[in-house]
């Protein structure tokens, strides 16, 4: 067992503990604790944004700036792949 493996096992187990404890302590599946923000969105998504689809009204109106970041990420990924493959001979 090389030292690299021992370190990897150590890191793996420490990080794994974090996820196990959080999965145990999180609210039980099916009844979320606090729901104030989401109820506000569900009740007046039609009146404020005019959209029937609650998720799309969040993606493009309530949290539209995230989706602008989203479009930038896609734009950055395409620009970087094009840059990495810029030396293609036709």
């Amino acid at each position: 067992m090389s030292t690299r493996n021992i370190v990897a096992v150590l890191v793996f187990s420490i990080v794994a503990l974090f996820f196990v404890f959080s999965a145990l302590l999180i609210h039980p599946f099916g009844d979320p604790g606090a729901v104030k923000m989401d109820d506000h969105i569900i009740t007046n998504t039609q009146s404020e944004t005019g959209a029937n689809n609650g998720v799309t009204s969040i993606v493009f109106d309530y949290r539209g700036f995230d989706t602008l970041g989203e479009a930038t990420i896609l734009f950055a990924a395409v620009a970087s792949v094009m840059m990495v493959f810029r030396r293609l001979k036709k």
Partner: protein
Amino acid sequence: MIFNIPFIAVVAMIFIGLFAVLFKRNLIKIVLGISIIESGVNLFLITLGYREGGVAPIYTSAPSDAITNTPGSMVLPVPQALTLTSIVIGVAVLALMLSLVMHIYKQYGTLNVRKIRRLKE
């Protein structure tokens, strides 16, 4: 109801992904490990938003009883929007990593992490 099985599935996926990233030597397996962790975290986000007997938060042709007690009968929409963003991030990171792996294979001739060690201490 199934008590906390989705959260156990989340932890299992994150374990598998982490195992692949830390212990596998092939570059493509590391990239696949990261996608597995990514889908595990997405599953975690989605399961946070489930509500007992909830319907999708869409009003078009929604069942009439869901309309009457509106907020309580619909699933939380915010985690779904966050997961949409996280999925597109996963696609972008995957595309970038795979193009780098292709170039590393062209330059080094191998995909074995041990042999790609030109940046010495």
